[in-house]
């Protein structure tokens, strides 16, 4: 399964960072920023065994594309590509990659951070954490904090 809309994808296989970087390459780019969200072992002192991500796929893809459009409006000289993985992820696996290229570095950092904030606000993707004593769907990360 790979449902993708050029620069914005939801996939259920391993994300290859280099491929996302290639999607934003441009002779006008002096800077590329990349954000890689990975599964970490400890969250609030609790040991995660693995995660499961679920998406409302068609809407998630639409919202990722919208985030790309928002970024183009705010920072017109940038190029953006975002891939989010769903399904079962182990510790250190990559859940999301955001690549932004820009002539100048300031915009590349700003646009990249904007993208991850917006993903956490509007993209319908959910994470379930599995520990050795149970599991839980994680919600509302922006307020209750877990991985940010």
């Amino acid at each position, binding site marked *: 399964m790979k449902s993708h809309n050029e620069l914005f994808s939801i996939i259920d296989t391993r994300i290859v960072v280099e491929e996302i970087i290639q999607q934003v390459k441009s002779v006008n780019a002096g800077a590329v920023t990349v954000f890689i969200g990975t599964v970490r072992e400890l969250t609030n002192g609790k040991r995660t065994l693995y995660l499961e991500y679920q998406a409302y796929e068609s809407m998630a893809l639409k919202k990722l594309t919208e985030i790309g459009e928002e970024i183009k409006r705010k920072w017109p000289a940038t190029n953006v590509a975002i891939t989010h993985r769903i399904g079962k992820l182990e510790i250190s696996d990559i859940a999301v990659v955001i690549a932004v290229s820009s002539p100048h570095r300031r915009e590349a950092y700003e646009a990249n951070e904007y993208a991850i904030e917006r993903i956490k606000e509007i993209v319908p993707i959910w994470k379930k954490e599995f520990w050795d004593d149970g599991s839980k769907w994680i919600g509302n990360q922006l307020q209750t904090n*877990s991985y940010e």
Partner: protein
Amino acid sequence: MIKILLFAGLQEEIGADSLMMDCTECTVLEVKKYVLTKFPLVDLQQVITAVNEEFSQEEDKVISGDVVAFLPPVSGG
């Protein structure tokens, strides 16, 4: 008929990833009430809704053939 999509914890609580509701024209609020009538133990307070993949308000109209998604707080990224 309206299709109701369920995700994450809500999907597990209800035990289905979608429901059908028989109505030709109603509001999002009515769809929510329908679900609460069938599954009174479910908590929809933090759930937001999308109609045909676009975020919606409770007063928004829904017609037969629309897809209403019930979205628990997201945790992607």
